[in-house]
């Protein structure tokens, strides 16, 4: 039936291996790029075929066992895939957005030295991500889980000659590893707990089936899910592990779009969705997730207010949006979370690619003018809407979408999340306040970005000013497609209250139904409340946009005054709440100090000191005893006599 599922990850793997082995010899960018893009596109086709097949299928959960992987006694693990509505949506998003970004990269990466390397990694990423979403058991998922981390590492460190890039890559991988530690702990505890009950499995379907064996709301399930959530915070850049994502912007922009916006970072959300049954059983975890999500959404948004690097703003925006998704998961709005995941994939990918287009243009111009200005600094931009019309329009559409303006995709998904966070049995009005405030700030900083970049005076260095071109079509086509989806992507999930059927929710229902019903998670409240909330959130967004307009178009001196007025607050926000410094001082430096101490202070001095000390004592005693051997006959005779006397005396008396 769905026996060609394996082809979906297989194609990119082939592409990756091919480019990895032969890319260097081929040298032809067109060949390399089209192979890579083609492979992901093939995956997309297969994914689409399976998706539509599933759409028409009454049986919504399908497993495909490929081979046995690890077999030790009762522990039997297979290479297996799982296709259900959730993974079906994900593979479409991944391969779809992936194809576009690959296509985009062909032009964007033109002339790069490691062209083949880039596509090799990108394809490898697609492979890993598809393994992640298609994995039929937690370990196959974990392959993808770590695999995307690896690719993220490789791609962030793509410009490895740059110290900051390789450092960012390391940071990304290591912070992710902290999350993976949680994931592994959760996984192993879960496995043990189930094995105690006689179920030896890591298979998702079986886990879901036997979840009821564990005590609902019990300590064990709470610990397990919290561990998993730690994994999710790592991968999805939530508090406390979000710091790697902004740094990850060191990678080429398509990477930021694909990995650090559209797909990989959403893996945490996906994972929670995948195990929704378990999470739903642990209200404490759910609450934690909701709070962490809400706080992340809020704090990341505050940081986004003051950044000047175009990609960093987007990065914090991503963190913030991911916070929304977690908020959704935490309040039990699983399908809303996934819905937002999807719409976010469209508009954020479009935003990143758009920013990439801008950077590409500026870079081109600077290069032309032999300048070394930072092409990512928004303070050097402005007025680009005329130079890059397509980029501008798609960017604007996506900005509106992310700001939650009605009838754009972001509106539907974000609003549903806000509604659930207020009205869900697991929700709370404080969560809603956090979300709404974040939404307002999002609208503000996104429009700030648009205004600073595309409107107003052109602040680019005069010498480069006139050389900013619109990007080539391999760049603009993906932009347009994504912009289109950012515009309309929300319509598959129009909530009932607005007269829609919320087909998205219905499609995903088989996955989440059980968790929601069994644990009585549902949004309740009157239509009136829902309408009111919707109106309030739209109003907040509008206020945000208006403020941005006031500050950056009508009265450009205002931001400066603002900064001067609230200098302290600005500095804190600008420096990202000093979280990096905090971690550096609390974890990194002590860790290094401990390491150094353990080595030089403990290992060498104490442990080895004891070893060498033993040798030294033995040698010292020997050297001392040596001098009893004085060379004088009478001393020797004396020793003998003493020996005799002692021996005889001892035995006689």
């Amino acid at each position, binding site marked *: 039936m769905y026996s060609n599922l394996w082809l979906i990850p297989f194609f990119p793997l082939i592409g990756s291996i091919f480019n990895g082995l032969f890319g260097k010899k081929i040298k032809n960018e067109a060949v390399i790029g089209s192979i890579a893009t083609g492979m992901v596109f093939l995956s997309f086709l297969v994914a689409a075929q399976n998706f539509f097949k599933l759409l028409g299928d009454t049986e919504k959960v399908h497993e495909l066992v490929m081979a046995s992987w690890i077999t030790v006694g009762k522990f039997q693990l297979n290479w297996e895939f799982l296709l259900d509505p959730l993974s079906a949506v994900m593979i479409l998003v991944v391969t779809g957005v992936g194809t576009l970004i690959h296509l985009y990269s062909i032009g964007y990466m033109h002339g790069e030295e490691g062209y083949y390397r880039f596509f090799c990694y990108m394809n490898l990423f697609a492979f890993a991500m598809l393994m992640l979403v298609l994995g039929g058991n937690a370990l196959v998922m974990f392959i993808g889980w770590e695999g995307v981390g690896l690719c993220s590492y490789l791609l962030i460190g793509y410009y490895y000659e740059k110290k900051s890039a390789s450092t960012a890559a390391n940071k990304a991988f290591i912070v992710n590893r902290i999350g993976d530690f949680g994931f592994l702990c959760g996984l192993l505890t879960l496995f043990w707990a189930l094995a105690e009950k006689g179920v030896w499995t890591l298979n998702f379907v079986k886990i879901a089936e036997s979840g009821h064996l564990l005590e609902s709301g019990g300590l064990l399930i709470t610990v397990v899910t919290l561990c998993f959530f730690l994994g999710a915070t790592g991968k999805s850049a939530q508090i406390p592990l979000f710091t790697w994502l902004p740094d990850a912007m060191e990678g080429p922009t398509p990477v930021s779009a694909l990995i650090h916006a559209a797909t990989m970072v959403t893996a945490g959300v996906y994972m929670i969705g995948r195990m929704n049954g378990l999470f739903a059983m642990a209200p404490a975890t759910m609450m934690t997730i909701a709070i962490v999500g809400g706080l992340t959404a809020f704090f990341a948004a505050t940081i986004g207010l003051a950044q000047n690097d175009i990609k960093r703003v987007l990065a914090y925006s991503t963190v913030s949006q991911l916070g929304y998704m977690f908020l959704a998961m935490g309040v039990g709005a699983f399908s809303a979370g996934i819905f937002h995941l999807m719409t976010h994939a469209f508009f954020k990918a479009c935003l990143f690619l758009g920013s990439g287009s801008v950077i590409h243009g500026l870079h081109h111009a600077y290069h032309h003018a032999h300048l070394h200005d930072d092409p990512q600094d928004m303070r050097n931009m402005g007025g680009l809407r005329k130079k890059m019309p397509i980029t501008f329009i798609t960017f604007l559409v996506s900005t509106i979408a992310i700001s939650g303006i009605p009838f754009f995709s972001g509106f539907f998904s974000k609003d549903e999340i806000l509604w659930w966070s207020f009205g869900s049995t697991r929700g709370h009005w404080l969560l809603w306040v956090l979300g709404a405030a974040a939404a307002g700030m999002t609208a503000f900083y996104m429009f700030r970005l648009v205004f600073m970049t595309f409107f107003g005076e052109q602040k680019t260095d005069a010498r480069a000013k006139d050389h900013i071109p619109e990007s080539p079509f391999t760049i603009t086509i993906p932009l347009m497609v994504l912009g289109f989806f950012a515009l309309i992507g929300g319509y598959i999930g129009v909530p009932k209250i607005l007269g829609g059927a919320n087909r998205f929710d219905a499609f995903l229902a088989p996955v989440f139904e059980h968790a929601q019903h069994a644990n009585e998670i549902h949004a309740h409240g009157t239509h009136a409340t829902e309408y009111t909330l919707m109106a309030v959130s739209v109003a907040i967004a509008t206020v945000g946009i208006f403020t941005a307009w006031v500050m950056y178009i009508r009265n450009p001196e205002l931001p400066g005054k603002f900064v001067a007025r609230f200098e302290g607050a600005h500095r804190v926000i600008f420096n990202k709440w000093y979280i990096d410094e905090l971690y550096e001082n609390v974890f990194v430096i002590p860790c290094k100090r401990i390491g150094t101490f353990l080595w030089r202070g403990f290992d060498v001095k104490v442990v080895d000191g004891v070893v060498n000390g033993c*040798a030294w004592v*033995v*040698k010292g*005693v*020997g*050297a001392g*005893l*040596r001098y*009893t*051997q004085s*060379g004088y*006959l009478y*001393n*020797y*005779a004396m*020793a*003998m006599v*003493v*020996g*005799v006397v002692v*021996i*005889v005396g001892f*035995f*006689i008396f």
Partner: protein
Amino acid sequence: MENLVQEAIQNVNLQAIMPSLVLSGLAMVLLMISVFSKRGSTTHVAWLSIVALVITGLVTLTGWNNPQAGFAGSVLFDNFATFFSMICIVAAALTILMSDDYLRREGYPVSEYYPLILFTTAGAMWMASGTDLMTIFLGLEVLSVSLYVLAGFFRNQTRSNEAGLKYFFLGAFSTGFLLYGVALLYGVTGTTKIDGIAAYVQANPDTALNTMFIAGGLLLLVGFLFKIAAAPFHMWTPDVYQGAPTPITAFMSAGPKAAAFAALMRVTIIGLDGLQSELTSLFWLLAVLTMTIGNFVALSQKDLKRMLAYSSISHAGYALVGLVAWNAIGLSAILFYMLVYTFMNLGAFAVLILIGKKGEDNLTLDGVAGLGYKKPILGIVLTIFLFSLMGLPPTAGFTGKFYIFAGAIEAGYIWLAILGVMNSAVSLYYYLRVIVQMYFRDPEEDFNWVTINVPTAISIAVSVVGVLYLGLFPNSLMNLAKMAGF
């Protein structure tokens, strides 16, 4: 009176002393030959001594499984005596082989040297076969007096003089204690025969508590402990070993020591069986003390001969462990170990003899730097001996030590075994230092003075074969040692 003489004559059993008789006789013939030989020509005497040893060896071997008692029970040439005699003969033969060239190099081509070694061997054989304290004493003195001479053989060399004198004085001193002990035992039991003493103690169990008996027994042991260089009677060893001519050092550490062990074992196990509990605790202590002092002090030695002297002290300690065990395994282990030690120690000394310059001032740790590269075969061979001395498989040193510790553990002396192996671990360091010098340092000298002569080469070859063969296939000789134990 007539009857007594007749009885005595009937008691004479020349077979029982035939090996030592033959050896002494041949040694005297050789002494005469050397008197009439041209001064400075020693080689023929050396080879004739070898022939004498071979003959003696053949005669000795007829005693295997054919115990001969004689002289009113004061001599018993049993398997035990045969085994030890063979050790001494082998040691003497190897020593003689490595001596000839050495004597000429050092400028003392004096052929009396060889008969002296033969006399020593004969004395050793008496000690091994004596069952009367009188015979043992005689053997001991024959052995000692010859050794005093041999130790001081280089009469123009102060070092050798000093070694001889120190050995002589301390040896004589210890003999005093031994004799006093014999006298006391005699006073209590009325006999100097070992089995007579044992029989007396068996008949009068209270004897074991008798002060005079205990004191006598302990003083008697002092003489033997002195000879085997057990602490605190070991002090002569390093000085004498260092000062004596190198082949004699090698010989002293093997043959006479084995003989002393033989006498010690016979006296303690058979004669002083009544004091078993006292003696085992004494030997326990002495074994540990001896091993520890030997190994610890060896750590800081630079002179190779002196280092090997301390090493030989520690090996006496290991061998004593077998005596502590006081069981069949431990005793036969000592026999086996003595044989093994003969091979590995004589082999090591033979290599040192080859690489020494005249006066042997270069036999220090630094002096062998890079030997392994300049003289690879000598290097490998010395390495094998050193590994054997360390007690590492697959050399005989390992099987020997294994046998010893097996005895101790079988008898329940776990701690002794642990202290023993820990001592082996300490000893690794100083043996390894030699290997470090030979292989891990760059050669400073080209060792062009080293010439390999056939007799020494033979003795080294025999030792290497012995060490490796007894390491890999110890079965046959272990079984012989088992049969030789009592």
